[in-house]
């Protein structure tokens, strides 16, 4: 077991190198100059001569001067040289990264002015993780009972109704659902309810007492969480249903029934326990997603989360933020895979690793 874990850990290194190298190359080799484009877009000015110095200063800070690929027109540069420069640039990023230097963002900053990618992700993690944890808990506590109930009453009305209903929910895009939620249930909309249409706090929340503050927060997160939850239900419910059905057909269930155990005991004691095993994988694999955040939900509800950070960085080709994100999600995903495999062996004695 120990050698297996060690092997898997060592294998993570080349995988991560592959992921980061690919990301780096894509970001750097795409034509156009994001540094100049950003400065000019902000300033509302297009004359690059005026900003050349400023762009150089920013490139210097970001450590992009040695192997500058941006700002060169790809049609006017030797492709071989271009590729080699990209590799050197990547090497430089690795060398800095190993020493714990992740560079600085060219676009984002935290409330206290830090531009380090780690601080940026951390600041937003405070918002994204609790939101996602609540959403996941709700998803699990609704979807699994639904799934199990539909398996138990397979072919009956409840099974069919829940299948159709969940499929419908699953097919609604979040952007539409979010807008509808705000429009129908948000303040200033149709007026069915008065949930706040944006943000996580009311203005003046810093003067509220603890209870009032918590209530205010819950009040604000209701719509975003509803928007995050509805789509995830279908998948998990279907999984629970399939898993329980499989177990209900298994020999040991037939044996249990044959020896005259009451149906309740057969289902809830024997079959249910075993059918929860595949859920472990799902639960662990959701860990990286917890940090991912949902760009669409964050945008619609003006939530300052990690999703908008990642996408915003990708759009403006904010290299250090993209690379930190890639490394973070890459590591988390690989780690989650490993943890899931280990848990599997732990729960199911039949699984053995060589």
């Amino acid at each position, binding site marked *: 077991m120990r050698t297996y874990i060690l092997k898997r850990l060592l294998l993570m290194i080349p995988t991560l190198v592959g992921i980061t190298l690919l990301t780096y190359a894509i970001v750097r080799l*795409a*034509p*156009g*100059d*994001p540094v*100049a*484009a950003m*400065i*000019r*877009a*902000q*300033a*509302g*000015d*297009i*004359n*690059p*001569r*005026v*900003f050349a*110095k*400023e762009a150089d*200063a920013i490139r210097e800070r970001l450590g992009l001067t040695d192997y500058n690929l941006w700002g060169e*027109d790809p049609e006017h540069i030797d492709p071989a040289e271009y590729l080699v420069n990209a590799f050197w640039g990547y090497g430089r990023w690795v060398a800095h990264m190993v020493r714990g230097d992740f560079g600085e963002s060219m*676009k984002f*900053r*935290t*409330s206290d*002015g830090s531009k380090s990618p780690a601080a940026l992700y951390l*600041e*937003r993690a405070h918002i994204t993780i609790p939101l996602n944890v609540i959403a996941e808990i709700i998803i699990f506590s609704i979807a699994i009972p639904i799934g199990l109930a539909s398996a138990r009453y397979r072919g009956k009305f409840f099974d069919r109704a829940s299948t159709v209903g969940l499929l419908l929910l699953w097919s609604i895009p979040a952007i539409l659902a979010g*807008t509808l939620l*705000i*429009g129908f249930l*948000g*303040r*200033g*909309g149709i007026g069915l309810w*008065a949930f*706040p*249409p*944006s*943000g*996580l*706090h*009311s*203005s*003046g929340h810093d*003067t*509220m007492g603890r209870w*009032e503050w918590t209530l*205010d927060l819950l*009040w604000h997160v209701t719509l975003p969480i509803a928007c995050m939850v509805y789509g995830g239900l279908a998948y998990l419910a279907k999984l629970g249903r399939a898993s329980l059905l499989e177990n209900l057909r298994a020999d040991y269930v037939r044996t249990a029934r044959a020896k005259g155990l009451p149906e309740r005991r057969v289902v809830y004691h024997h079959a249910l326990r075993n059918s929860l095993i595949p859920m472990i994988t799902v639960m662990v694999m959701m860990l990286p997603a917890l940090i991912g955040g949902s760009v669409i939900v964050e*945008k*619609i*509800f*003006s939530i*300052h989360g990690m999703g*908008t950070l990642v996408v915003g960085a990708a759009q403006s*080709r904010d290299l250090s933020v993209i690379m930190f994100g890639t490394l973070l999600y890459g590591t988390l995903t690989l780690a989650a895979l490993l943890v899931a495999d280990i848990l599997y062996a732990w729960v199911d004695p039949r699984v053995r690793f060589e």
Partner: protein
Amino acid sequence: MADTMPRGFRPPALRVAVLCLGAAALVAALLGPARADTVPDFTPEQMGGTLRRTMTAEPQNLNPLTGKDIYERLVNEFVYERLIIRHPDTLEFEGQLAERWDVSPDGRVVTFHLRPEARFSDGHPVTADDVVFTYETVTDPKIDCRSLASYFKDCRKCEKIDDLTVRYTWKEPYFKTLEVSGSFNPILPKHVYEKHVRADPESEDPKHFNKLVQGFIGSGPYTFVKWTTGQEIVLARNTNYWGKPRAFDRIVYRIIVDTQASVQAFLARELDDLPITPDWWDKLKDHEERGKTFRMYRYASPANGYSYVAWNNAKYRSVTKSDGSEERIAEPHPIFGDKRVRRAMTHLIDRKQILKHLYYDIGQVATGTFWPHSPQHDAETQPWPYDRAEGMRLLKEAGWEDRDRDGWLEDRTGKRFSFEWTFSTSGGDTRLPRLLKEAFRRVGIEVQTRFIEWSVFVLKLDRREFDAIILGWGGGGVESDPYQIWHSDAIADQGHNFITFRNAEADRLITTARAELDPAKRTVLYHQFHRLLHEQQPYTFFIARESLRLVSTRVENVNVRRVGIDIEEWWIPKEKRLKQGGGAP
């Protein structure tokens, strides 16, 4: 795009047309600043309460010199002051930090006499040292504010005469010397920032001026309180303010990304004002609450700007010289090098219909580069009408007709009238490209639409590698200088004249007007220039935008002035103030 930093003129900015429309509304909120006799003397009952506003995105930073976006200006507008500003009705300059000023007859020397009572929010008086310090910081090559500095490149010096007198000396006579010297720089306190400017920018010194992002001290009626990223920015009344106090205790900007959400927040009375886009104007104009809980304002502001189709007047060819170096030679564009073709293109675009259907009839068909309400604008010039027959006649005259009866126009050598129309993918709305492509197909002109990312798009502009593009310029202020966009000097070095418009008469008019200090004579020159542009049609001028704004009926004293709406005139009666901004019920 925006014009607030310097209250009058700023470099016209480049934006994708559709993007501009969204942002233009915001810009309007920025301009329209008064602080003149138009700000009332508020009674103690009128003072108090919070003005709740919104932004769709965050500023990059709140440093008044290195901050570059409109959001920074939206906030710093209330924190900083300038020597002079334009009166919102007469558009004439009047003193803000300066009490009076003298301009030498040739316009080269501008002397400002500061108000002895002016104070920064920390109580220090505003002196000539602060003005000189600000000028030196702006022009310091180590400070990240090259765009502002570029306006002072013809300024020889800024010197202190005595504590309350400061003098700018310029190299050339120029009609904007007073405006640039007096209204472009927000005045910073030397005693606070000197050490930050002196700090070594090379070392990782967090104290260096370029690294300061918030908490700035100015002399304006409000001071910075806090900025919670992704949530809100708060300003509070400057209790030490030297001038007339403003009505609100606090101004709070909430960051709301989604337009639907911000409109709803406004309708739920969580915001006091909201700039909106034409499509929202159209949706809300018959809203039952209009007139009851909110009013809608539609007005022109010098910040509005216009959108246009730019026809590349030149085509560049690379030539390898004998020493092996490469040179790019401009030749007239095979299609758009001919002014008859450019004018024909204008005749073939139904701008009125586009204005009606895509922009809900908000704005007007543009005829030139000046703000339609500026004296520079020649009111006699009417837009070329949509006239297919005239367009086809001009094309025939220029040699384009359907010679082989295949439905497409050809030139004399049989080459088809076909060109590439480049759009930026960040433009959003794709209706316009599709509409134009179809309109031109019907008259036998083949348009190949090409969508590219913004950063590649600007690269194409720099290299002048395009046939036609759609873009917008932000407002150039009350009186703008066409030099940067239209003079042939701005062709080289990737200047703003990216269409390579080269016209000797235009150059002459621009240069003469720049040195003409008599406004009446200058106006004559600019009217001539306007007519020349109209005749030449280097652009098809598209739509001159307007500002749209929702304001809550809680707010009193909302006035539309010639430069727009100034929120410093506003106040909210006590009974309408909220204890807290809408929490859980």
